[in-house]
């Protein structure tokens, strides 16, 4: 089945469309992903900020509570009731102390610690300086700080939070250090967090809830009605946080300034996204003093901007890519396809035969080169064609020369013989048709005459003509009768006749005493017998043309001429001569022309009526064709019998 090649513009359009479409899809997908990630990160940042600030506030409130319940209480007691009253408060607690400014402990519930220095405890030194600075800057009599993490007690046995209180009311601007176990802090923190977390928003629609270590929800929030003091329904989230190895758990350092000293306190937060309470949230889990802070930010709000942006971007991309597609397609059409079609059109003109057509598409280097190359090729071809044509013309000239030089053209050929008139002519066509005539005396009173038409053209035709003429002449002059001449000539001419040419021929032996003509006819046109002013064709059964097929035997035919009779022999160049309307001269016209009736033409000086008759026919045919190109040789031979001795 034939495969129809598609138009280039169609192929390119489809490919371009696919490419643009893929680019559009990929860029939309990338944009969406980038936006999503950006929004998710923003959501997490928001959650982190909210969670951290909430935990800082919880810590601060817890500190304050602890200060109120112990540190400040101690300071007031000491200031108002003296050292002994303060020492009494310390009874039973191992790790709470009162120290001098330089840090040496002088009051403690455990005598082992007296004399030791509180500055040996982590952070305490910086915290003291920080508290003092604060008091000075703000003209406060008292200041307190809490250690950011648990620290080891002086004997290294426990991890506790230390509340540092610095008070001017205590002699030597004393330092009060109270130790608090994490669980105790947690209890205090719970109270603080319940208050602090209420109505703290994350973004517009996000919020925080606080959950205690028993997984009870401690926040009353309008976002989650009826959850106050209920069990947190998603314990697995908190479990993941506690477990500590989840991939979504981020441990990072929260920087905290402590007397201009930046210390990093490790913080642990879990960031994730889930559907909780039928709503899609980004969330983060944090922990302060044993209470969990769950910050929730609805995905809808988080991604709102993303979705709007995506919609806008997709819209813009559709427009941009459509425009891009159209522009590219237009460009290709204008710059490439149209130019190609133009080149093709010129090439078609050249193929149709107009070798002077030039390809002139020159608006880009490639097409310029293409045009130049095509034109150069065509010019080269034109040169080759001209050369070939010139060679053919040369060949034709040679063939014509061979042909015309071969034919006897001296008339009258036997001027001393009065028994007959003989004239013959051959007008060669440009293409050299290979016609010939011949005549010879065979013995004393026999005239042999021959007309023939070779089928081949140009040099091969001319050479075949020479061969046939020579063969027939030599056979005739050897004394053989005409039929046998043809039979033998036929065999000879069939030999080695590779080009498969053949020759029609009409050979006659005229007995000059009796007027009997012995004839052999090898497929040639019947001659015209002019007898008493009447002309008619001599139809004699022909044999096959010479060199057509071997094994053909020719039969001798006879015709009796009366005194004055003429035989007019011709080739089909006469009867098939064409005028401008491609109408043939025809047998009828010829026989009509030669029916003189009463009006015999005047005899010419040298060759009698025979010559006049030939000239007459030549003139009439010329008049008939009237300028149309001669397509075949016009050959004729006319013999008139004037009677025997």
């Amino acid at each position, binding site marked *: 089945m034939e495969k129809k090649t598609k138009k280039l513009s169609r192929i390119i359009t489809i490919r371009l469309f696919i490419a643009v479409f893929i680019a559009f899809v990929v860029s939309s997908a990338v944009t969406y992903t980038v936006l999503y990630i950006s929004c998710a990160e923003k959501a997490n940042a928001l959650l982190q900020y909210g969670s951290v600030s909430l935990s800082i506030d919880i810590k601060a409130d817890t500190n304050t509570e602890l200060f109120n319940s112990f540190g400040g209480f101690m300071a007031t007691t000491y200031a108002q009731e003296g050292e002994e009253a303060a020492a009494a408060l310390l009874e039973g607690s191992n790790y709470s102390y009162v120290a001098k400014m330089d840090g040496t402990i002088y009051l403690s519930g455990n005598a082992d610690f007296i004399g030791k220095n509180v500055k040996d405890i982590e952070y305490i030194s910086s915290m003291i300086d920080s508290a003092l600075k604060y008091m000075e800057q703000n003209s406060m009599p008292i200041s307190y700080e809490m250690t950011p993490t648990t620290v080891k007690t002086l004997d290294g046995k426990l991890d506790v939070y230390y509340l540092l209180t610095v008070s001017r009311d205590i002699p030597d601007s004393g330092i009060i250090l109270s130790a608090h176990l994490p669980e105790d802090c947690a209890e205090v923190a719970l109270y603080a967090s319940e208050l602090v977390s209420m109505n703290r928003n994350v973004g517009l629609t996000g919020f925080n809830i606080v959950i205690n270590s028993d997984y009870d929800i401690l926040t009353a929030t309008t976002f989650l009605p009826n959850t106050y003091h209920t069990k947190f329904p998603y314990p697995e989230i908190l479990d993941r946080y506690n477990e500590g190895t989840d991939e979504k758990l981020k441990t990072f350092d929260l920087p905290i300034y402590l007397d201009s000293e930046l210390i990093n306190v490790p913080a642990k937060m879990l960031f994730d996204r889930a559907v909780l309470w039928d709503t899609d949230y980004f969330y983060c889990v944090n922990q302060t003093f044993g209470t969990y802070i769950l910050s929730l930010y609805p995905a809808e709000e988080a991604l709102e901007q993303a979705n709007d942006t995506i919609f806008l971007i997709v819209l813009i991309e559709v427009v941009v890519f459509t425009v891009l597609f159209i522009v590219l397609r237009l460009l290709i059409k204008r710059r490439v396809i149209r130019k190609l079609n133009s080149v093709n059109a010129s090439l078609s003109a050249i193929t149709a035969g107009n070798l002077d057509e030039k390809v002139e598409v020159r608006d880009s280097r490639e097409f310029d080169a293409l045009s130049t190359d095509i034109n150069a090729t065509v010019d080269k071809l034109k040169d080759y064609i001209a050369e070939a044509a010139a060679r053919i013309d040369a060949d034709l000239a040679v063939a014509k020369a061979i042909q015309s030089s071969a034919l006897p053209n001296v008339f009258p050929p036997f001027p001393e013989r009065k028994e007959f008139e003989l004239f013959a002519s051959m007008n060669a066509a440009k293409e050299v048709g290979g016609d010939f005539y011949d005549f010879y005396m065979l013995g004393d009173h026999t005239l042999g005459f021959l007309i023939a*038409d070779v089928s081949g053209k140009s040099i091969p035709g001319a050479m075949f003509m020479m061969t046939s003429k020579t063969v027939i002449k030599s056979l005739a002059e050897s004394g053989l009768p005409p039929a046998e001449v043809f039979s033998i000539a036929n065999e000879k001419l069939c030999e080695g006749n590779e080009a*498969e040419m*053949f020759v029609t021929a009409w050979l006659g032996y005229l007995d000059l005493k009796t007027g009997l003509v012995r004839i052999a006819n090898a497929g*040639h046109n019947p001659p015209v017998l002019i007898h008493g002013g009447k002309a008619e064709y001599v139809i004699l059964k*022909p044999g*096959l*043309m010479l060199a057509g097929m071997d094994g*053909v035997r020719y039969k001798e035919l006879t015709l009796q001429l009366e005194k004055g009779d003429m035989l007019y022999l011709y080739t089909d160049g006469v009867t098939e001569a064409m005028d401008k309307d491609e109408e043939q001269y025809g047998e009828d016209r010829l026989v009509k022309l030669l029916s003189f009736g009463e009006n015999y033409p005047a005899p010419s000086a040298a060759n009698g009526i025979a010559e006049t008759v030939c000239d007459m026919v030549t003139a009439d045919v010329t008049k008939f064709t009237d300028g149309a190109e001669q397509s075949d040789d016009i050959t004729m031979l006319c013999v008139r019998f004037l009677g025997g001795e």
Partner: protein
Amino acid sequence: MTVNAIKDGTKLTITAEGKLGTTSAPELEKAVKDNIGGVTELVFDFGKLEYMASAGLRVLLSSAKVMKKQGSMKIINVTPPVMDVFTFTGMADVLDIEAI
């Protein structure tokens, strides 16, 4: 001139329509050459042939030479003007020719 070659087993029928002259003879020659392989019966149908010149005779003669070795050849539906040419050239006696 338009030439058609119809092959039916080992029989080849070639029709020629129009004028068989010097320029159109090569077309007929090609049609014979392309299809004559393995043919045992070659038939030329000249029912629509108006005119025959000697170039056409040449093709018929060479085809006859080939078919002499392979099988048989005949020319059918020959119109009067073409029949005249066959008669005058003696082809009518040598080839199997049927008038229309």
